[in-house]
């Protein structure tokens, strides 16, 4: 299978809202910057393909229900994607946007908010792919750039994870300030 390189930018490109996971529902919403994730690879015709996604990189953590802090991976670091986790569940309903890529320990790549006005996603350092059907588009791209041999989409994602042909580099970034969303 062909290899894929992903890079998470260190400079904010926008902003979104989040909440303080897992026990900070009563603290209200927070503003969090968004970043660019660039996917580089080659398609079946050996053409170079580059596609950008808007993502969460940092999030807000609250364990005690009272105090919140910004968390995430800020230093320059590179990982090989370890596995596709088909049973990782983000949504209450069955969805093609469930599942996740294991980057390192509990740090994953998974679905994020469709837009700024409907859902509020939490992150404690996972990369979350934004946009309507964003995670489906992202995974479709990984399949087209990897060229797995399995027949079904589910099996293709597992095969890509097992091949360990994908890397992700986090460019150095500054931790954003903890900022409550103004009403």
């Amino acid at each position, binding site marked *: 299978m062909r290899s894929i390189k992903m890079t998470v930018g260190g400079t904010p490109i926008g902003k979104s809202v989040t909440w303080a996971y*897992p026990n900070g529902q009563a603290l209200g919403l927070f503003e969090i910057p968004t970043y660019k994730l660039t996917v580089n690879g080659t398609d079946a015709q050996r053409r170079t393909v580059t596609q950008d996604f808007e993502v969460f990189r940092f999030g807000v953590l609250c364990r005690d229900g009272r105090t919140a802090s910004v968390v995430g991976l800020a230093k320059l670091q590179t990982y090989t994607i370890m596995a596709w986790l088909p049973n990782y569940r983000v949504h209450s309903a069955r969805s093609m946007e469930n599942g996740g890529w294991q980057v390192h320990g509990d740090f994953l790549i998974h679905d994020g908010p469709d837009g700024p006005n409907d*859902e509020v996603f939490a992150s404690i350092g996972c990369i979350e792919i934004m946009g*309507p059907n964003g995670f489906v588009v992202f995974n479709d791209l990984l399949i087209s750039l990897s060229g797995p041999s399995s027949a079904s989409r589910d099996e293709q994602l597992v095969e890509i994870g097992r091949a360990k042909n994908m890397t992700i580099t986090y460019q150095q970034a500054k931790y954003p300030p903890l900022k409550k969303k103004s009403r």
Partner: protein
Amino acid sequence: MLRWTGFALSGVTLLVANEGSSPLSDFVKHRFVQQVSSGLKDYRVCEAFSRDDEKKAFFKKSFDVDVFAGAQNFESREIFVEEGAGKDLRRVHLGILTLRYSNAAAAAGIHGSLSKQGGFFKGTEVLTRFVPIHVDQALLVVYSESVQNEHVKSFMEAIEAQVKDEQFSSP
């Protein structure tokens, strides 16, 4: 009655049988669609179905209390009102969990416990607001991931009173 509901999944429409949805959940669904579709020109109403064991596992980790303890049966529905496609897709979500207990006191007890949880599922990455509604032997949990949608906010504020105002001879 057997109904067929279309569920669009990545461009493929699956037909899934939904047998015997309760009048309570039909009422809530109807009110939801009415509220969130106002102002939309061209929209779709879709339902996603999950296995019972998947849903039970999800709800058991989402609530402080085991809502299935003492429940005789349950029905779970996930409804989406969608407009547009591709990058312009807008999707608003509603979930309805209907539990039926052997008596009204059992339903009231679970309702009381849920009311103390603060109105949000626990352990979900997507902030999910819920409203528990007690109707005789039945308990409805109406919930949504679309917590910032203004129509959903209004709907969640009003739905308990609307259900209470409606007469359900057999909820």
